[in-house]
């Protein structure tokens, strides 16, 4: 099992090495991405097999620190995440075969793409602190190189800087955490950490550090700032990987540390994680609503979905701390299910955004529109993605959020008042986030694909190439399948929850009509398949009946528009105007300012509206930090320009101080 996986990783690294020579032969794209596709599929199959098999398989290689070696292990959790990672990787590779032809700097992408995949696989199978952090940081490094692929744009260089610093911040936080877990003797093996008993304060500290480390990678507020910078900067398949897959690897890290290594913690960590999740979900979707750059919008939505996943994890923590294992299993299943779902539809959406960017050269929604006609397949797939991410039945996004709600409804069984007070609020935040997400994706799809083209580029657009279309359609199909047959996914997750919280949800696939029943049929149940068929049935029924009994005639005419149709596309509702009501409602979050200047009567000057939004998180935390560093650097910089005499006096001062220390203390 693990051997096969390691061979896959090795093959990916080999691909990274042959990328440049192959490119010199002029077949770099097919070789690298085709190879990556095959290897990822193999690794995905391995993961699925391990998940089905259930038994953990381990292996250690004499690499890294010799007395430690590099340990690898595939248990249920790792297997599940292997499936997630490699499924996304396979789709991204397939997409890249086509995208590579439009890539402006292919040689800066091809070598690092497989390396990035390999690193993510390594993180998942790592079984000791060293190899975990090694591959974790390798993952950051490879993705940083990919972000820097289009390094000639100033913004991308800045994005790369912020990204790498934040990533290393996370790694160092995790490093400190592992340092605590390992103890002064350096017991870096995960087994040792599992068996070791950790003092409560230590567990708390480790948890905080893990939240900082994994959270900064996953993008929880306020550690999310790099996401909307880095994800759009990278080439679209890489954006899909970073947003859809890498953030999931971060979630894996958190689950591995908190659920697996740390042993049973106190109840309040659940509180913290829940609160973070709720805030992250709502903040993320609000930022996304205010965004007009399609890829930045998607990146912010990643923040939102990470929040939703965190809510599930927090619930699971809280339940587990109170030894309510079935509810914990339910919550954890919901979180992991959402991990899978988000991987699928976020990759799908980024593929779509990438196709749009390739065909039109635009990412700004205000200059797009009407793409549903030139790009039918892309727009259809994108629509499926939008419906799924908006948590609308019968697609997969709804199922995981529904499960989360069911878990929330079990929380009155919790004894702690803090949780009792907090959880309903978090539930409200979750519902709010879901509703806002729907609004946001009406905006995203409506402005980008519907209406009339807002620029010549949008007029001249054409359908994406067949590889991209294939990748998108496959994921669209998965969205529908996972939404209509969720029982199988839940059952597949059973070994994971069994291993982590010592319980599992009741077997679903045996239920009549393949519906899912989290606890008991009398309590709640949902059947995506039947629902899907009902809607399909009644829709076609209505259509057939109407066409047969009533009329089927259809005339084309100019738009009615209350009698004042205006040919200019600029009269359409724009993304900004669409978001305006919500901006009014949630204005304080962005310290939004609207400045309207109305010309005086009889003046022909155009009226203008000027909207300013501020990223309060950045202003509150990151800008001050940057200023502090700059200030210190400026102050200390004088040390470079002293005279020799002053340097001598420094030496002298050091000597005198040390002698004084000797004289006084010793």
């Amino acid at each position, binding site marked *: 099992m693990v051997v096969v996986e390691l061979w896959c990783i090795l093959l990916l690294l080999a691909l990274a090495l042959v990328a440049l020579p192959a490119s010199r032969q002029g077949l770099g794209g097919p070789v690298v991405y085709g190879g990556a596709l095959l290897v990822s599929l193999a690794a995905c199959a391995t993961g699925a097999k391990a998940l089905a098999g259930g038994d953990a398989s381990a292996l250690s290689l004499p690499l890294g620190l010799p007395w430690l070696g590099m340990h690898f292990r595939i248990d249920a959790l790792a297997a599940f995440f292997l499936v997630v990672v490699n499924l996304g990787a396979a789709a991204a590779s397939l997409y890249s075969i086509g995208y590579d032809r439009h890539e402006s700097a292919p040689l800066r992408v091809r070598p690092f793409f497989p390396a990035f995949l390999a690193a993510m696989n390594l993180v998942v199978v790592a079984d000791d602190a060293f190899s975990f952090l090694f591959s974790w940081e390798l993952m950051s490094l490879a993705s940083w190189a990919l972000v820097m692929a289009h390094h000639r744009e100033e913004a991308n260089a800045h994005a790369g800087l912020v990204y790498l610093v934040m990533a290393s911040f996370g790694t160092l936080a995790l490093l400190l955490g592992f340092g605590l877990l390992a103890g002064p003797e350096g017991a870096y093996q995960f087994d040792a950490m599992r068996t070791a008993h950790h003092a409560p304060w230590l567990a708390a500290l480790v948890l905080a550090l893990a939240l900082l480390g994994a959270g900064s990678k996953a993008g929880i507020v306020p550690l999310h700032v790099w996401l909307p910078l880095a994800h759009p900067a990278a080439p679209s398949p890489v954006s899909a990987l970073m947003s859809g897959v890498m953030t999931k690897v971060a979630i894996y890290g958190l689950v591995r540390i908190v659920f697996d290594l740390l042993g049973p913690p106190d109840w309040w960590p659940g509180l913290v994680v829940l609160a973070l999740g709720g805030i992250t979900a709502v903040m993320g979707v609000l930022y996304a609503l205010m965004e007009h750059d399609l890829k930045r919008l998607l990146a912010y939505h990643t923040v939102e979905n990470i929040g939703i996943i965190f809510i599930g994890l927090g619930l699971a923590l809280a339940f587990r701390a109170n030894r309510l294992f079935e509810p914990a299993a339910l919550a954890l299943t919901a979180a992991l299910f959402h991990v899978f779902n988000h991987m699928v539809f976020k990759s799908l959406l980024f593929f779509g955004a990438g196709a749009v960017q390739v065909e039109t050269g635009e990412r700004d929604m205000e200059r797009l529109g009407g793409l549903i006609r030139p790009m039918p397949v892309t727009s259809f797939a994108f629509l499926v993605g939008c419906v799924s991410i908006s948590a609308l039945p019968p697609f997969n996004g709804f199922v995981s959020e529904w499960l989360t709600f069911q878990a929330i409804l079990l929380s009155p069984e919790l004894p702690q008042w803090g949780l009792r007070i907090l959880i309903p609020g978090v539930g409200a935040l979750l519902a709010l986030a879901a509703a806002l997400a729907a609004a946001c994706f009406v905006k995203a799809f409506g402005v980008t694909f519907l209406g009339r083209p807002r620029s010549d580029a949008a007029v001249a657009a054409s359908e994406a190439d067949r590889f991209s279309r294939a990748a998108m359609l496959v994921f669209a199909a998965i969205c529908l399948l996972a939404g209509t047959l969720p029982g199988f996914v839940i059952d597949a997750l059973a070994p994971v929850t069994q291993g982590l919280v010592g319980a599992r949800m009741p077997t679903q696939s045996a239920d009549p009509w393949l519906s899912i029943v989290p606890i008991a049929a009398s309590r709640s149940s949902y059947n995506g398949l039947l629902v899907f068929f009902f809607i399909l049935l009644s829709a076609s029924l209505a259509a057939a009946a109407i066409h047969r009994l009533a009329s089927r005639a259809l005339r084309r005419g100019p738009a009615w528009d209350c009698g004042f149709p205006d040919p200019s596309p600029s009269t359409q509702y724009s993304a900004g105007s669409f978001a305006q009501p919500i901006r009014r409602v949630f204005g304080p979050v962005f310290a939004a300012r609207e400045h309207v200047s109305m010309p005086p009567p009889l003046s022909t000057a155009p009226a203008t509206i000027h909207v300013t939004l501020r990223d309060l998180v950045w202003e509150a935390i990151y800008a001050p930090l940057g200023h502090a560093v700059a200030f210190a650097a400026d102050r200390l910089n004088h040390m470079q320009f002293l005279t020799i*005499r002053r340097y001598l006096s420094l030496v002298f001062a050091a000597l005198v101080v040390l002698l004084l220390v000797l*004289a006084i203390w010793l």
Partner: protein
Amino acid sequence: MTPFAFDVAHLLAGGLVLVSFVLLYQDRLYALLKVYALHAFVLSASVAWQAYVQDAPHLYATALIALAFKAIVIPLALRRIIERLGIHREIEAVVGIGVTMLAGMALVALSMVVMLKVTPGAAPLAREDLSFALAVVLLGLLMMTTRRNAVSQVVGFMSLENGLVLAAAGARGMPMVVEISFAFSILIAFIVIGLFLFRIRERFDTVDLSALHRFRGEIR
């Protein structure tokens, strides 16, 4: 060792510290050089006395080097440099003479305190000498850091180095004292040559190149 011998050694070492203070007190370059000559002379006397007391003949060589080189050659060389380069004759002190003296006092006290912690196991002579030597070293550093003129800084360094030689001589049967003092003389010679080569008039910090090329016969 007889108490008398001990007292003389003590006296000479203390004298060296005293002369260091006198160095600190100077505000004219020529006077400074004269006092430094005195400093070197006292040092050579002290070293010679150590040679006599420990009957270590090689120390006489050290004393000789100190006398010939430091007490005579270097002061003369520096004097000529001052004339050749037209360095003006006052010493600009960073802080007032008085403050410098007070700091010097504090340093001496410090060196005493540090050295008196030394357990009586060590030879008493070594102990006393060490505290004085440390004081001389510190005072030399103080001079280097509180004087602006290159020449006075060089003098400071040389007095510091005298402290080293004093310590080395005080260390019973220390090998290579001669070599060390010789090596240091070379070092000092380098510094002095550097002063001259680079036409360092006022400070250590700026070196004047045109002069250098003229010296090397290259006219740019």
